[in-house]
């Protein structure tokens, strides 16, 4: 299990290769990378990510552990940045390695759903119109319900 919480950028490809090489005798690796998307209308100057030092690390570890308990996985990777990012920069990444492909897909999907709504990060978008906190999407909360008792 690897958790990285950091301000600097990361190299998703290098992390994916190291993760795959280190995951043991597995058949499938699924990765998700989140990228700062520009706005079509009001161009985004920056995306600022605030977090809760201490709680963030605990939340990321708990989320990764839950995935590892729920599916048969070779390894789990969670990377999340904070600070000021510009459009096109990579915000975060998760990866799940498993003997079987369904487990790798579901675990990565689960990690993303939990990161969205249960890890203490708050995004603020900076445009020419000033800063604006990103509002939580009710669909993200609904997405979590998929993982309870099925």
């Amino acid at each position, binding site marked *: 299990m690897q958790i990285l919480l950091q301000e600097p950028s990361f190299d998703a490809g290098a992390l994916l290769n190291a993760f795959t090489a280190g995951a043991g005798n597995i058949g499938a690796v699924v990765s998700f990378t*989140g990228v700062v998307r520009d706005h079509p209308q009001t161009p985004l100057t920056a995306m600022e990510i*605030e977090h*809760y030092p*201490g*709680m963030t690390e*605990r939340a990321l570890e708990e989320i990764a552990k839950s995935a590892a308990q729920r599916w048969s996985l070779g390894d789990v990777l969670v990377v*999340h940045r904070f600070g000021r990012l510009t459009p096109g920069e990579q*915000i*975060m990444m998760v990866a799940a390695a498993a003997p079987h492909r369904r487990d790798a897909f579901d675990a990565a999907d689960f990690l*993303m759903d939990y*990161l*969205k*709504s*249960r*890890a*203490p*990060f*708050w*995004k*603020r978008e900076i445009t020419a119109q000033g800063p604006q*906190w*990103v*509002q*939580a999407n009710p669909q*993200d*909360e609904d997405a979590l319900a998929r993982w309870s008792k099925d």
Partner: protein
Amino acid sequence: MNVLYFAWVRERIGLPRETIETSAPTPRALIEELRSKDPRYAAAFADLAALRVALDQELADFDAPLKGVKELAFFPPMTGG
């Protein structure tokens, strides 16, 4: 008790953290106490549905007991990922 604020809760209150002496039994009671103390708190805590609370770095309910808690944090719904 250390009380922390994040995102727009921090902005409305104007502080990232403070130490509060309180005998409030729950986060909900503490919110009532703070609301009556200063309009900045009233603004930050206007809508409880838009607020989350963590006790000692674990998400908690507004009615969870504060007894023994060292660190409390108020913040909006999280937007990670």
